[in-house]
């Protein structure tokens, strides 16, 4: 399946902002994160198509997956 992966804040360092990536069907959010060399403990928020999602969720073909470290402000 084809997933648009978006990275934010320091997760972009030595990686990318946004990239179309190919994953086998059934790949979970956390598998995608690990495949990028990101430590799961540093992940703050994940969203599929602008909705919050869990690490065990499986995106669908052509979904957008956004991965944020723990951040805050306001």
């Amino acid at each position: 399946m084809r997933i648009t992966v978006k990275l934010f804040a320091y997760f972009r360092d030595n990686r990318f902002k946004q990239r179309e990536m190919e994953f086998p069907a059934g790949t979970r959010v956390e598998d995608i994160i690990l495949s990028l060399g990101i430590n799961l403990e540093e992940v703050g928020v994940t969203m599929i198509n602008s909705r919050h999602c869990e690490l065990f969720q499986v995106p669908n073909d052509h979904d957008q997956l956004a991965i944020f470290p723990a951040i805050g402000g306001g």
Partner: protein
Amino acid sequence: MADKIFRVNMSDLSTTVEPVPAAWMGLGGRGLTSTVVATEVTPTCHPLGRHNKLVIAPGLLSGTQAANSGRLSCGAKSPLTGTIKEANAGGSSAQMLAKLGVKALIIEGKPHDESKWYSLHVTRDGVTISEESEVIGLGNFATVKTLNQRLGEKVGVITIGPAGEMRMSAANISIKDPDSHLRSGGRGGLGAVMGSKKVKFISIEPTNEQVQIADPEAFKTANRLFAKALVDNPISKALAQYGTNVLVNIINESGGLPTRNFTKGQFEGHEAISGETMHDTIVARGGKPKHNCHQGCVIQCSQVYNDLNGNYKTSGFEYETIWALGADCCIDNLDHLADADSLMDDIGLDSIETPVAFAVAMEAGVLKFGDGAELCRILKEDVAKGTPLGRIIGNGAASVGKAFGITRVPVVKGQAIPAYDPRAIKGIGITYATSTQGADHTMGYTIATNILGVGGKLDPLSKEGQVELSRNLQIATAAIDSTGMCLFIAFAALDDATCLPALIDMINARFGISLTADDVTNLGKTILKTEHGFNLAAGFTNKDDRLPEFFAEEPIAPHNVVWDISDAAIDSFWDF
């Protein structure tokens, strides 16, 4: 030296130093300003008249070594909302006032002769009133520069710009920071209240005196734990790197970034104005990504943003300002945003209210969406000079809506809704509706739990649990706002079990008392009820706790959702 109440009467130009009434002893910051306003100000009074009072109070821990304890609270009846109001900011004045033993500075009355301006000078012995002419009409930066030359670089300064002198409802109160730049008590037009008293600035004498600590050892131990909790928190680290503006991309991704005067939930130009882009721009131009707004801050969310030539342009360049000028006004150029931020600091304008007012003016056709140069020109040539258009904008978003017959006006109780759309992030809508001070995200920051996964998780699009979330956060915030602490300690306090007990231990060690967590919660509840009581007596009802009707009727993309929490559910907020 026991803390005292310093009182200034601008009607007869007299000053007194009074003992602290027993009922005010355990209060500081917002808890104290709101209690004084509720006790001494006639709720139905005109906010710019002689019966209103401006109350300035350091927090319970201000002036101590406690990390992040440098916030100063300003309170009064607001000319923008007609409600009670407290606005707090960093800078150096909270710590300086606390060291001089000032529990609160109360400015009341109003000179009969409106042609004269005054300044106040605070020392440990009291307040001196002087007639002032040199800095009248000057912007805040020139005022601070002049006062540094006149009174020395270390003098504390609390000042208003031309907006406050002209009594505009979006006028802020500015506080000098350690770099002689400015921090702003932004919301609710408190600068206009100070201007109505004909006080241009308050100067504070530097002192070597220290705040007395009842149990210094216990205090030091608790502060060490507290500071560690703040420093270790991953959100603190991200705040230091990207500033609060790290939020542009995540709020945009969530579909809750109000865009083009609240007609869309995502902004095409988000990347250009994001915290990530800002960080890279700051580094490339030799600025500072992290910077503290007051001594003792260990989070350092501020920054030094330089212009294209590497010269200082602005600091305290916040997410809400960048959102309002960027997404809401559709300006996707950080340098235009920085120009406007610096101009608003100099004129003394709330950098949320003012750009939201501009977005309504853009919808009215006064200027085009996206025209950052024209926005800056209007700030300089109209708002700063008080032309009729400048006054309409300087009185806020509701003022612009009324002047131009616009119905899509994002305000609650007359105050502009900030950077989170309540249709797509419903918890914050409850805060906007029920806050005792008009729409204000900082009153109960549900974004933490709705979006950021801090303090648990609650689906931002669900109707369930939002009232309870907002209530709990509003109670906790009222208590934190009384300590002199920066609200950003809440990110650690919500998720690190050592943080809040350490904070309470510090308060106990400072005063030799034994508060429990329940006492602190009860303090928050009491403050909210005191503020609510003032508003009810001023004539507000539950019907004022509503969002503008367009939120219920205009779905917002990408989720195509409307505001759909019932009036009964909103009203249940006050069931505590």
